[in-house]
């Protein structure tokens, strides 16, 4: 049974002094941290499983995910088609495997883009009071829009492509990352080592990159797991609405959108893509929760 803890982690059985998080310390140490924290363990297993599917799954896919075969329409799961076939006779299992890759790539690229943009905005806003007000008001304004509505509007004028989905989701999720980074920078700015570096004559970019940024890494890692989780959910919702990855690409959201007409005849079309999304997102969220517990200074 999973013992889930939000901010309090009385169950952690880590011996030894706590080291600075974010330093490369070898696979064995990473393994020990992960196994000592059940949340992190379950989350990491789920996430790695889905990432593995995304990486190698398509190699093992028994059929071409876009191969139309009208003789095989809406077949229930069988030995030949493990998860059945859809209304065009396409193999659901193969589509699911390719869908994992689509979700992982869109989630990963969006994650990278939001992290870079959010870090830049957060560092500048936290370090320079002069730009703080205007930058954060813009971030506040972006956050007041319901994210999906903003994304739909943006994608529909720019054109419905996977690339534009990434752009829209980056715009939607950057403000949160910027806020997280800014909050860390505000407290790091007041520390002696930053004061010391500035007093020694170090230039701002050096102080920001060498002294401030490395100390923002822990909250940034936690944030990035959540960004990826929400990106996968949002991409699925956008595809469902018809403003996501354009069909016939086998995105999980597209599969669910297509299944709407066959909920009565072929319920497996609805079950499996939803289960896949839920496992991927659950893994990422558990990982984020676990990392937050581990990195929380109150739990030392």
């Amino acid at each position: 049974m999973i013992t889930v803890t939000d901010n309090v982690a009385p169950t952690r059985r880590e011996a030894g002094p706590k080291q600075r998080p974010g330093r490369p310390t070898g696979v064995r140490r990473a393994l020990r941290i992960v196994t000592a924290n059940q949340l992190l363990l379950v989350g990491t297993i789920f996430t790695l499983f889905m990432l593995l599917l995304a990486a190698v799954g398509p190699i093992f896919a028994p059929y071409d995910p876009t191969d139309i075969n009208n003789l095989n329409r809406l077949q229930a799961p069988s030995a030949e088609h493990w998860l059945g076939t859809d209304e065009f006779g396409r193999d659901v299992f193969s589509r699911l495997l390719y869908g994992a890759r689509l979700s992982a790539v869109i989630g990963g690229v969006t994650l990278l883009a939001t992290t870079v943009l959010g870090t830049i905005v957060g560092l500048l806003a936290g370090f320079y009071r002069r730009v703080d007000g205007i930058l954060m008001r813009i971030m506040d304004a972006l956050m007041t829009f319901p994210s999906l509505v903003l994304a739909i509007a943006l994608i529909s004028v720019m054109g419905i492509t996977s690339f534009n989905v990434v752009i829209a989701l980056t715009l939607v999720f950057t403000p949160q990352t910027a806020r997280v980074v800014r909050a860390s920078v505000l407290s790091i700015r007041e520390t002696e080592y930053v004061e010391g570096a500035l007093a020694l004559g170090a230039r701002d970019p050096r102080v920001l990159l060498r002294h401030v940024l490395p100390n923002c890494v822990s909250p940034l890692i936690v944030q990035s797991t959540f960004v990826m989780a929400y990106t996968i959910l949002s991409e699925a919702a956008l595809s469902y609405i018809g403003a996501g990855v354009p069909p016939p690409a086998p995105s999980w959201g597209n599969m669910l959108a297509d299944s709407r007409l066959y909920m009565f005849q072929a319920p497996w079309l609805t079950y499996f893509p939803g289960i896949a999304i839920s496992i991927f997102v659950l893994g990422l969220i558990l990982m984020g929760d676990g990392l937050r517990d581990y990195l929380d200074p109150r739990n030392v």
Partner: protein
Amino acid sequence: MTVYIARRFLGLIPVLAIIAVIAFFILRVAPGDPTAMLLPQDASAEDIDRLRERLGLNRPLPIQFFEWFGSLVTGDFGISFHSRSPVLETIAQRVTPTIWLAVSAQLFAILVAIPGGIIAAIRQNSWWDKGVTLFALGGVAIPNFWFGMLLVMLVSINLRWLPSQGFVDPFDDPINGIRRLILPTITLGYAQAAQIMRMTRSSMLDVMRLDYVRTARAKGLQERTTLFRHALINAMNPIITVIGFSVASLLSGAIVVELVFNYPGIGQLVVEAVGRRDFPLIQGVLVLLAAMTLVVNFFVDVSYSIFDPRIRYE
């Protein structure tokens, strides 16, 4: 208190202005021409020019913006490209179902989440706690539209208990109206409940470790008094923050859930409007939804000072 509220209120104005700027320019970053959606394929260049002039699209962007923004300030949201009727009127016709859905889902979420989170916190690591935590994780990880589809399959198709389509105003026909509202409310409310529940639990756990709670217990107060008068009140601010922040995700979720249940609200309006490149209508919806979030968060800010009077004097 009045000064505090007034200061907060003035702080809304620049954010509202930025919202208007974003809503206007985000639709114009792409080269796409909205007249293409309004005229037949074989329209002549003169026809296109004439339409562009009539819609004001031939003027420089900054001028278009200030004209639109100028009337926005006076409450005039402009005229829809497609239906030629005032944007505000079009939105008003579609907003009632969405408000019903959003309010009932948020109420459902709060009523489930706060008691659930409190029970999980006071019985930490018990089966209650594990159940609540699993429930909340499910709400965060399961896509709301998929959850809605599953509910439709189970409750409407297999059990035939409740209708799965459309909206009837509960003021006109209470029984039918409420029956049609139940499934969308649970669908949207589950994800909302999950967010609020997670925060309630962790905020209560944080507070219950503090010295004054131990003191309250040590001086022999009843557990109930300790929990509600000492712990919960001090745990409220993060919970309220999440409730406020969750309004944006509530409105986002409503858009998708409306499509699942074929529910004639703002969600369908947005999808129709973006399909037609109806810029004034999209801008209007964006500004109104953002303003709704902003106003709720303004009340959240003000309510902090009710639970924590120190905030007023900062």
